């Protein structure tokens, strides 16, 4: 398993080499989300990486509008010094496929949670695909399954910040007075506490690419590296507030010189495993609405629109079957109680007695206690 990390200067490149990092990611200020480097610095780092025999990857991972994409000049990078290009935007992917011959590392961390989709991406890139960067919302079992089925190199974030939110708008500077000196800085950072969440301390960053919010805790799978040996590349992200010198300890964990647990003790951030064990982020959906007022098609008649105590209940006919006298109906109230009742009286809205209805319109039937407005009405079998 390769260890992949970001570098932002010569010192970090040296440390990466010294501690046996397999590959470094270099991000320019323009078309990458968190890049801070000028093109000349990017090229110099690429050149140096090549000289010392370290695989280097140029990261262009921003999402770009048409004008922004037109502003990307791949010729400003000395691509011969890089071993691969790393992209997320399909438009940038197309540009890279057509204008360069470099292998591509495709970032599929935004969604892409099913095998057929991943296979489509793989097949589209064909031999140009160097690696797929998979979503950290995938649990380990899925990762392993996908790795086996895809038969292409895959990468996964094992250590670092979790990006929660990405917008091109400048949200932090907008909250500062016009003369605030922070506004002149290339990056503005803040820590946010949400009124809705028990979590406190979301790091927020604004740069030339927009505004980003991160989880309060870092993704941390350093205790599970032995289970992740099937991965081709493990990404370690020591940007932002981290100390790059931690790379030495990181490599110690990869080389089994230090346990993940010991490393966790010295790691300066709170950590989580995220969805590593399981992803059940859809189980709460059934609680988002009252399923009892959700129509079921079978035997459906309609919905109670009005109750007049002792007099009638008005039913709006919505199903495929009308009502006729003598029919037995089942009412499911919004709180879940069920009532059954035969149709004894049936009237139209002119209060005329009728024997049966069509399948549309409004009808009044004999009152039944306990039934509420919005109760769903079915033929009782």
């Amino acid at each position, binding site marked *: 398993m390769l260890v992949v990390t970001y570098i932002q200067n010569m010192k970090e490149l040296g440390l990466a080499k010294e501690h046996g990092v397999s590959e470094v990611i270099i991000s320019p200020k323009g078309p990458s989300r968190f890049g801070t480097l000028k093109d000349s610095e990017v090229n110099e780092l690429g050149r140096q990486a090549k000289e010392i025999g370290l695989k280097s990857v140029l990261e262009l991972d921003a999402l770009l509008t048409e004008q922004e994409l037109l502003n990307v000049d791949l010729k400003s990078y000395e691509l011969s010094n890089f071993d691969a290009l790393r992209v997320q935007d399909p438009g940038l992917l197309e540009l890279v496929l057509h204008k360069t011959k470099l292998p591509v590392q495709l970032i599929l961390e935004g969604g892409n949670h099913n*095998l057929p989709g991943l296979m489509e991406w793989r097949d589209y890139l064909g031999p140009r695909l160097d690696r797929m960067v998979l979503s950290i919302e995938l649990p380990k079992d899925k990762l392993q399954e996908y790795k086996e089925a895809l038969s292409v190199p895959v990468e996964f974030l094992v250590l670092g910040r979790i990006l*929660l939110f990405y*917008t091109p708008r400048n949200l932090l500077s907008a*909250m500062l007075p016009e003369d605030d000196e922070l506004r002149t800085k290339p990056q503005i950072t803040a820590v946010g506490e949400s009124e809705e969440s028990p979590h406190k301390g979301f790091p927020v960053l604004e740069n030339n690419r927009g505004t980003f919010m991160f989880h309060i805790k870092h993704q941390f799978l350093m205790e599970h590296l032995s289970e992740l040996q099937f991965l081709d590349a493990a990404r370690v992200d020591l940007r932002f507030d981290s100390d790059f010198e931690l790379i030495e300890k990181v490599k110690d964990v990869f080389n089994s010189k230090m346990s993940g647990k010991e490393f966790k003790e010295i790691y300066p951030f709170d950590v989580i495993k995220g969805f590593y064990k399981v992803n059940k982020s859809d189980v709460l*959906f059934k609680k988002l609405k009252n399923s009892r007022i959700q129509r079921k098609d079978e035997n459906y008649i309609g919905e109670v629109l*009005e109750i007049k105590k002792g007099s009638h209940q008005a039913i709006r006919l919505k199903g495929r079957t009308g009502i006729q006298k003598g029919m037995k109906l089942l009412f499911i109230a919004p709180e879940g109680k069920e009532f059954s009742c035969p149709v004894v009286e049936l009237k139209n809205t002119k209060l005329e007695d009728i024997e049966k209805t069509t399948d549309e319109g409004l009808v009044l039937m004999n009152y039944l206690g306990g039934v509420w*407005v919005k109760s769903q009405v079915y033929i009782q079998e």
Partner: protein
Amino acid sequence: MIKVPELLAPAGSLDKLKVAVDYGADAVYLAGLKFGLRSAAENFTIQELEEGVKYAHDRGAVVYTVINGFLHDQDLAELPEFVKILESLKIDAIIASDLGVIKTIKDNSNIPIHLSTQASCLNVESAKFWKKQGVERVVLGRETSIKEAGKIKREAGVEVEMFVHGSMCMAYSGNCVISNFTQGRDSNRGGCAHSCRFEYSLKFENEEAKKKAFFMSSKDLNGLAVLEEFIKEGIDSIKVEGRMKSHLYAGTISKVYSEALKYYAEHGNFLSDQIYEWERELKKVTHRAYAASNLTEKADASTIFNERESDPNVDYIMIGNVIDTVKDEFMLVEVKNAFEKNQTLELLPFTGAAVPFKANEITGLDNESVDRTKPSTLVKVPWVEGAAKNNILRAQRC
């Protein structure tokens, strides 16, 4: 007649579909009980889908179904059957955002595929990529300007659809997972908790004190003032957000934009005082402060809705909807908000200006006189010329 974009309205339920179509939408988008991004919406059973398609098609409108979640393998397992049902129901297109979903649709049907805004397609090259995947139309990311959208259409050779009105994600669509990690609810499978709408205390790097701000909340999009730009750039479809919103919203927005588009189709301009009336109408439905966001220039600080959402924030409320009419006698109304005898109400006809009238006589179904109505009751009010089933009644908030 000048060609104008299709008006695509939200249909959170079968009733809202009928409202949107009756008030002039050319197309509606809706979700089945699964696979969409609004798990809390009523959504459509199979029979409702069938009824909705028939209702729309009978009136010359088309129906698109959203399957735009980032689906997991277990979700995909049920998808082929659903897609086949959609094809049998003659759904006009499916809106999808995930390559696995797109492949499943292609493998199981010939239904046209529209790329969801969730895929954040923002440029010509990206649109070309999606076209190669079988997509006929791209719903562009909300970061795209109208001019860029026109260029994408011309150079990529795909239909383009843009949002024209409604709530906005502040994040690139599909690029926000706050709910996933803080609430255990996958925002990209229908569980968005709208974390961007809450207040945050921000502590900047150079300050001790915290600033409280709704810094991630976006103003609502309103593209009425730049409608001509959409037309001139040949945008194929303009879309209204809001499957979770009310009947009043669905009806009003559909009515305003359809009337505006029809006016342009006939006259080739918006040189009419009617534009002021349409603008006033858009302010009569619940909304945050409006902005044009990225439609003509890059969204700046002024597009942040830095205040707590308040309700009521508009002067008008929905009184009810017309269930039935008896000409020259009465309108039967399902009451949504209470009103009183002699209160002035407004009937919102499918075309033309709202008609004010006094509810000088209110009776129940049993013809007993009613002085003050209650929500969730049915009442008769005086008939108004032009009233039709599914019309909306509204009133100024007292």
